[in-house]
């Protein structure tokens, strides 16, 4: 109990004085999450809609793959990415290991299945209800996609929230491919692990509060957007 109390007091002291290291770590985490979400949405949205709407033979298999990908243990995936990116590994020449880019790559691989699966489910559901209607309107394929996308806006935002949540809370893969290097690849989550292992509970708590606040406010913002859209 003493530990927790001391930790909380120390945490507020750090936050109040605006520790520069914590600020740096926060910005890095945000940058990485933003890139990861941006790239996975760019890949996942069109793929998700395409899979949700189409009826070709391999479709069910690909959807199952995406769903399985959602349950992929991040640490295992991190290990595989690390192996590929190591200097002695197949893509070692790119010198990506232990850089923020490597963390972004790992997080994209983790988040794309979520976005594909959720968007595909929503698109498939809407299509079933609206296909005949859309056809009767005489829409060309591009208009069809646009209108369908418009109808699944809410689900797309849910997918982004889910993806963001996964990206920002990632620690195992981030450790392995990033290396938790101070000033380079130390994210909020990896920093927490480090501080705890050093016994610096007040710093760890401070960082955890930042992470909580960040995660909460971004999720709340996107959810607010959803409610705005949702008042159909």
């Amino acid at each position, binding site marked *: 109990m003493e530990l927790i109390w001391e930790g909380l007091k120390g945490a507020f002291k750090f936050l109040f004085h605006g520790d520069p290291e914590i600020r740096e770590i926060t910005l890095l985490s945000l940058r990485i999450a933003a890139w990861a979400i941006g790239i996975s949405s760019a890949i996942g949205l069109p793929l998700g809609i395409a899979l949700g709407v189409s009826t070709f033979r391999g479709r069910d298999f690909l959807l199952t793959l995406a769903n399985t990908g959602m349950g992929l243990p991040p640490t295992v995936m991190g290990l595989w990415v690390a192996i590929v990116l190591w200097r002695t590994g197949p893509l070692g020449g790119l010198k990506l290991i232990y850089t923020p880019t490597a963390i972004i790559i790992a997080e994209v691989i983790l988040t794309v299945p979520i976005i594909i699966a959720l968007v595909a489910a929503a698109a498939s559901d809407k299509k079933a209800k609206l296909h005949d209607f859309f056809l*009767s309107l*005489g829409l060309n394929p591009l208009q069809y996609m646009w209108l369908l996308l418009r109808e699944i806006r809410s689900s797309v935002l849910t997918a982004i929230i889910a993806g963001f949540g996964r990206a920002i809370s990632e620690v195992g893969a981030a450790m392995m491919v990033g290396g938790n290097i101070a000033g380079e690849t130390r994210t909020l989550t990896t920093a927490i692990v480090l501080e705890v292992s050093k016994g610096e509970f007040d710093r760890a708590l401070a960082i955890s509060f930042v992470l909580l606040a960040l995660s909460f406010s971004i999720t709340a913002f996107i959810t607010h957007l959803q409610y705005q859209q949702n008042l159909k």
Partner: protein
Amino acid sequence: MNYMFERKATDFRDIENQTPVIIAEDISVRRNERFILRNISLVLHQGERLGLAGPNGSGKSTLLKVLSLLIPPSSGRLTVLGFMGDGRSSVTVRRKMSIVFQQPTTLTGSVLQNVSIPLRMRGLSAREATKRAYEWLKCFDLEKLAFQRIHTLSGGELARLQLARAFAMEPEILFLDEPFAAVDATSRSPLKALLREILAKNKVSLLLISHDFRDLLDLTERTLVLLDGHIVAQGKTQTLRIQSPLVREIFPE
């Protein structure tokens, strides 16, 4: 309410000489070894109003979807507004037709958007689309609800909205599948009268499915009766009940 888009007027005194807008020759629709429609042949002329009747499962909705180019026929020949209906893409022809489905179909957004968005998709400018959408909402007594969210509408209001949207697209052929199911008895007659007026003024061809024979009497000149995917009776709607014992059975009064 007149279509805002100019159309060539035609003489209606002699229906037999009118241009056919739909020609179906020996159409069949098969799904998984089962025949949903068999040997359907019919002609719909410009400005003509045709009813489609029959018990549940007789294939009426499927026939409507085939004639409106949503489903290609498994065999037979179909020509709609001069276009061969064999499954090929038909965006231009589809834009000359409107369908009101049994289950109301809505887009997320306001009531006005539900009419204006399809118009925008057809190339109207934002201003034109909004203006035309509003005019048609007014025609169906929905203008006060224009900015309400679509999910707040009652069943009857939704039904009128489907019709407003269908007409806003100024179709040459209108397909209605049980359009009055959610409309209460007292509102039906004035709505049907409004429909008759709009159809006549704009020389629109109509295909109407209804369980209620009164709807068919009020809105159609001829009716086809389907049973198990076949046409089993057809004739002038007014005299069909007298003519056909089968019709009397399906529509007891």
